[in-house]
């Protein structure tokens, strides 16, 4: 038998609580007897009668006396004591006020979470994201307009805590089956995605889903992560994490062309899991080609990507201007590259999801008003648009876009839509396609195919 006797000055618990704690300890098989009580003369005497060597105590001290068979048993009993004493202050959740927390810090203190999703205005995102990291939670920062020095600081603190910062300006993530931000409803499967581009990842994963291949996780890292300044801090962590994940058989890395030092950082990781890299830019595979490469790497067939051609258009004379009105930055860049958009002679391609357009207003996937105005301003030629489906996005984009398409076609404008979505998306991929197609648009599930088609139309 071995004894533990402790006197803790100034620790107060009411006697009922302490009796309950004493009983719970004594009930444990390895504990012979336990006295946990305030250090009154009576209680100290009681412990001494039981054979404990009790030093002088005052009624303001907490007296702990435990006897167990071995010192290991005593250690377990002591741990249980701490748990019991901690529980007395936890309130058991019931009596706590139901008022919602005002900060992520407060939420994380009262509720067990695995991840935080921050979408407050960019200048305020740092505080909430730092709360998450300090609470040991990974965090997705949907917010844009977050200063780069704050991004670097968050990512460094996160690495030290063993958690991941996704973002800022991270549009999409799928973690353990939960879609965060703009997230398509994807089937579970073997492909893990690390994305410095939200819509780029959505295009790849939606095409994979159409081909019957699902994802394990999609970890966004933010559009700036692979810049020289940020140096791939989160991409490195995300790649390592997916490499550890037994559910991930193949990793797809989606990014705009990375800065050389960031490219080095992500390349030299020595991962066991094969990686298909989609580094978007001149001379690189487009997103559709990346999806096809991933399918082949998994030994799967590449299907015909669904498309819905427009009806017979009247013959047009000569070369016509081509406009791109996009909500997804990567989709916009890809389309411009493929269509060979000549910004000198054509009004060009606009990404309405860019920070410059979203300061103080919702993302164009939610608020279509700026794109609608731009579309109405197109008098002739060819217009290429993206429509991105999934949770968080416009619940029924065809409801505003189909009438605009009809009007544009009536003005003699050819409309081509890149429809990025999965069959599980709440908007209904095929229903949206059908409505836009009926209004006169050519609809493609591959953005690259849409861009090629638009180019052909514009070239006459």
């Amino acid at each position, binding site marked *: 038998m071995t004894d533990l006797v402790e006197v803790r000055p*100034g*620790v*107060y*618990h*009411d006697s009922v*609580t302490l009796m309950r704690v004493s009983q719970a300890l004594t009930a444990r098989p390895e504990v012979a007897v336990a006295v946990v009580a305030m250090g009154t003369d009576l209680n100290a005497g009681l412990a001494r009668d039981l054979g404990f060597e009790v030093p002088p105590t005052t009624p*303001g001290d907490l007296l702990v006396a435990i006897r167990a068979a071995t010192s290991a048993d005593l250690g377990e009993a002591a741990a249980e004591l701490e748990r019991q004493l901690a529980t*007395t*202050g*936890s*309130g*058991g959740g019931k*009596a*706590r*006020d139901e*008022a*919602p*927390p*005002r*900060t*992520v810090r*407060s*939420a994380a*203190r009262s*509720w*067990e*979470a*695995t*991840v*935080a*999703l*921050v*979408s*407050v*205005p960019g200048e*305020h995102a*740092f*505080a*909430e994201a730092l709360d*998450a990291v*300090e609470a040991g939670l990974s965090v997705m920062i*949907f917010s844009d307009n977050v200063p780069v020095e704050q991004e670097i*600081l968050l990512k460094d603190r996160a690495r030290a805590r*063993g*958690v*991941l910062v996704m973002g800022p300006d991270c549009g999409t993530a799928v*973690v*353990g089956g*939960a*879609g*965060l*931000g703009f*997230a398509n409803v994807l089937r579970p499967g073997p492909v893990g995605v690390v994305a410095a581009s939200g819509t780029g990842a959505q295009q790849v994963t939606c095409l994979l889903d159409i081909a019957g291949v699902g994802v394990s*996780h999609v970890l966004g890292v933010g559009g700036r992560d692979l810049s020289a300044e940020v140096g791939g801090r989160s991409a490195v*962590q*995300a790649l390592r*994490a997916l490499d550890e*994940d037994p559910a991930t058989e193949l990793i797809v890395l989606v990014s705009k062309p990375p800065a050389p030092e960031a490219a080095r950082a992500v390349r030299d990781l020595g991962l066991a899991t094969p990686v298909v890299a989609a580094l978007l830019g001149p001379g690189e595979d487009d997103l559709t080609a990346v999806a096809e490469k991933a399918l082949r790497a998994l030994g799967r067939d590449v299907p015909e990507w669904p498309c819905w051609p427009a009806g017979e258009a009247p013959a047009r004379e000569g070369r016509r201007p081509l406009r791109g009105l996009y909500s997804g930055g990567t989709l916009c860049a890809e389309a411009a590259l493929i269509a060979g958009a000549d910004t000198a002679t054509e009004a060009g391609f606009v990404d309405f999801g860019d920070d410059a357009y979203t300061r103080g207003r919702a993302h164009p996937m939610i608020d279509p008003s700026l794109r609608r105005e731009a579309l109405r301003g197109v008098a002739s030629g060819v217009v290429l648009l993206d429509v991105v489906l999934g*949770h*968080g996005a416009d619940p029924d984009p065809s409801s505003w876009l189909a009438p605009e398409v009809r009007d544009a076609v009536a003005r003699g404008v050819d409309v081509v839509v890149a429809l990025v979505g999965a069959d599980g998306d709440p908007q209904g991929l095929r229903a949206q396609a059908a409505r836009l197609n009926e209004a006169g648009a050519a609809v493609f599930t591959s953005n690259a195919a849409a861009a090629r088609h638009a180019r052909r139309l514009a070239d006459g």
Partner: protein
Amino acid sequence: MTLSMLYGEPRVITVGAEVLAEALDRQAVPQRRVDWRPPAPGVAASLARVLADPRRVQANATAVGRMLSARPMLTGVRPAREALGLEAGTFFHAGPPITWERASGPMRGALIGAMLFEGLAATPEEAAERLASGAGITLDSCHHHRTVGPMAGVVSPSMWMLEVADAEHGATAYCSLNEGLGKVLRYGAYGPEVIERLRWMGEVLGPALAAALERCGPLDLRTLVAQALQMGDELHNRNRAATSLLVREIAPAVVEAAPGRAAEVLRFVNGNDHFFLNAGMAAAKAAADAARGVPGSSLVVAMARNGTDFGIQVSGLGDRWFTGPAGVPDGLYLGGYGPDDANPDIGDSTITETVGLGGFAMAAAPAIVRFVGGEVADAVAATTSMYEITLAEHPAYQIPGLGFRGTPAGIDVALVARTGVLPVVNTGIAGRVAGTGQVGAGLVSPPAGVFTAALDALAAA
């Protein structure tokens, strides 16, 4: 690296766009929404700097840890002259430093009363003239001298002080003896009965308590406060349980030490439900002082009002005060008094809120919920909202009605500025005219600007 969020059921804290939260609801993902509101304009830049300070987390843990581990013991009762080296013509007062010119009615009344008590003037008029001229008069903040005082908080050399020693960190703090309610010096009254009572306190009460304490030994105030909280006190506007416990502790020793005076002494102490307040304040001051001077800490170590200004001090910012106009409390009034009779907020008793008592422990005191809106739920809401702006939960001070959760303790300037949630302060209300005394009691909000100013100073430090 292993990323825990990839394994097990996702549980998401969301803050910001409702559309993204709804998207999670539609996926039936367990979610806790943050009720986020933008901070006051201009706060974001300072906030980001302060939050990014690599010292902050550890500094705040250290500072609040010291505050919560303090073990204040009531060790003695001594004249201010002796305990604080206070000289004739020097007066300490509540709140940040103030001049006679800027002093409010009750502060002036209390200073006049102290002049009369010390024999420095024969009439109130003469006292006021001498105080206005400033000749031979020194005013200073109690807080600069390890001291706190309720309401006007005026301390003069002949007043007897409760002496509280922090057994954990070794510091000492002081507070005057409570005079009772009604026409009393701390509320700015200076009539003959006020001065007479002060004399009796110096001649009878102080020495009797001092002798009793010598007999029964130091009194553990941390334990006493913890018990009083579980008996329905919040230790600022309700001290009935704590006072009763104090009487129980010292009565035998008073009888033994001062048999001839024991009855009047015990009758006085027992007849004043707020007698313990001053001991609790000294205990709070000792705990708050233990948290001072931690570089990088954004913990509030003093909130105090002088009847004109509301001021705070912050652990990482030395003895600097951040002040704003004191508000007029919202509360219940005695007899025929009303809000027009109320002086702006006054007193050092906000030291109780500084350490997580008073308004912060409102949920412990259902008997006085009328001060916070009338329902027990309002008291619970007041306390629970304070967890949003505090760094810790007190390990010893627990609230039975919240499942013995520790009181919200340790105000963080950054959290106040960020959430806009201001400390809930319980307070007595003094009449605005010198000599009136107490007119009511209620709640008051500190000026938000003092917290943002302190945040800016932390950002610049």
